């Protein structure tokens, strides 16, 4: 499917961002990239979190990093040398970042140059943003065509996401130069129906009312995600789980497909799993 388009249009840049840390950006970036690639789209996922470098671990390629994003930006390596080809999915690539540099190593021109080059070769360029709203995060979103704002159903995460949505509407190339908006979606992660029922978390409806952007999907809190991360496996490439089904549904929506909500709904825990603790 990948070699279909001879003169393909330029690839789409999608930033995975959130403002708040620890909400599941990198996990989501890895899962979305892997799910897109699985469907035959040539996909690259870039780590913008300079200095921390988590994406390559989640993708299970940390031992294969030789050159990185920063080397490419600074002209010390060619893009081809830095791209790591995933061993599981033919159409998936990873552009890792540097652990020894800091965010000052990112320049607007450098990022733009790398992204333009990637756009010629790939269908989807997934940018895994660092937490916060500082330079690293701003550069990750600056050239985006679309944004996935990862949010947990709790107030501080929702407020940070709202802040990020404001930046997406004003501090991006699209907003500054073209006067158009980056198309933004919310991805609700770490969703836990029991904690919502107990009144400890916000409902999906509450979050959407505040953020007022379309919902891409709801990812349940799940041990499958933890397990997958620990073995360096994007959750959608691991064995089937509620979380992987939810990510697949989210990616279908990202591609503009209609998704039957029943297909991804969490199974009601039966008596057995309730007695012995649900493991999604």
């Amino acid at each position, binding site marked *: 499917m990948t070699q279909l388009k001879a003169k393909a249009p330029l690839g789409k840049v999608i930033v995975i961002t959130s403002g708040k840390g620890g909400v599941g950006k990198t996990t989501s970036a890895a899962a979305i990239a892997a799910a897109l690639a699985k469907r035959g789209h040539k996909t690259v996922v870039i780590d913008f979190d300079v200095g921390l470098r988590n994406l390559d671990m989640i993708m299970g390629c940390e031992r294969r990093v030789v050159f990185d994003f920063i080397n490419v930006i600074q002209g010390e390596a060619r893009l081809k040398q830095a791209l790591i080809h995933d061993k599981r999915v033919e159409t998936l690539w990873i552009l890792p970042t540097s652990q020894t540099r800091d965010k000052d190593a990112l*320049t*607007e021109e450098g990022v733009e140059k790398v992204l333009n080059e990637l756009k010629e070769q790939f269908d989807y360029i997934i940018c895994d943003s660092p937490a916060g709203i500082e*330079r690293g995060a*701003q550069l990750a979103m*600056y050239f985006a065509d679309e944004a996935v704002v990862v949010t947990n159903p709790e107030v501080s995460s929702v*407020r*940070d996401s*709202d*802040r990020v*949505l*404001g*930046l997406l*509407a*004003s*501090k991006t190339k699209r907003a*500054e130069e073209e006067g158009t908006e980056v198309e933004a979606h919310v991805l609700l992660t770490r969703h836990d129906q029991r904690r919502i029922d107990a009144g400890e978390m916000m409902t999906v409806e509450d979050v959407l*009312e*505040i953020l*007022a952007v379309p919902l891409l999907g709801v990812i349940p809190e799940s041990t499958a995600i933890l397990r997958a991360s620990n073995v360096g496996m994007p959750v959608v490439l691991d064995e089937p789980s509620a979380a992987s089904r939810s990510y697949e549904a989210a990616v279908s929506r990202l591609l503009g497909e209609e998704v039957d909500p029943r297909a991804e709904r969490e199974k009601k825990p039966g008596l057995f799993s309730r007695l012995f603790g649900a493991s999604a």
Partner: protein
Amino acid sequence: MEKDDTGIRSDTGSKWRETFHVRGRFLTAIAIRIESERPDANFFVALDEKIKTNANLLIGAPIVLDLEAVPGFVDGTLLQNLIDAIRSRGLLLFGVQNASAEQRTVAEKAGLIPVLIGRDAPTHKVRAEASGPMRSVKRLENKVIRRHIRSGQMVVAERGDLTIIGSVASGAEVVASGNIHIYGTLRGRAIAGADGDENARIFCNKLEAELLAVAGLFKTSETIDPDLRSRNVQVFLEDETLRIERFL
């Protein structure tokens, strides 16, 4: 206490190559208006009470000391004591306004900046009248915004009404010299009559505000009647108090 708006924020865009850039900044400060020439124990009890009931408004907010009502308050030691006492309560006192020349000398010695450009809320009638003819000279410029105002964003209508077709998020701020209309939920801060227009009103479809202010008089979420939460309301001044009224 009053709210006080000084200057206008202008964002010059993002160019991170420069080592610095100059930006206008719209600063919302809180003025503590001293009414007694010798602030005594009662003053501090009242101040502590105010801090307790309005903690999220006062703590961390930039604060100026307003000395207009106390021109006779020139004793350096007393003023210094007052400044120390306010600061020791965790309030970020940075400036002084309406100070006489003598007061200014003492205040500057204590590290306070004389704030000259502040427009005062109209608890003082004289000032409101004086600025009346001035304002009529300016052309009215109403502003209509057709999007949500996100957390951290600020929208200002300097000379007229502000209409938002959308919601105002928690952590966002909308300011107008005239009325504010919000066709959505108000979760952030709304400041109408910012130049002192006591006839300005705030209208919103759903009230969840952090702060409401008309011509300098304000209410915070803690002092808004819980029965008015999530209602469609108007907010206006009546007999020097801020009233919130439901539409039926």
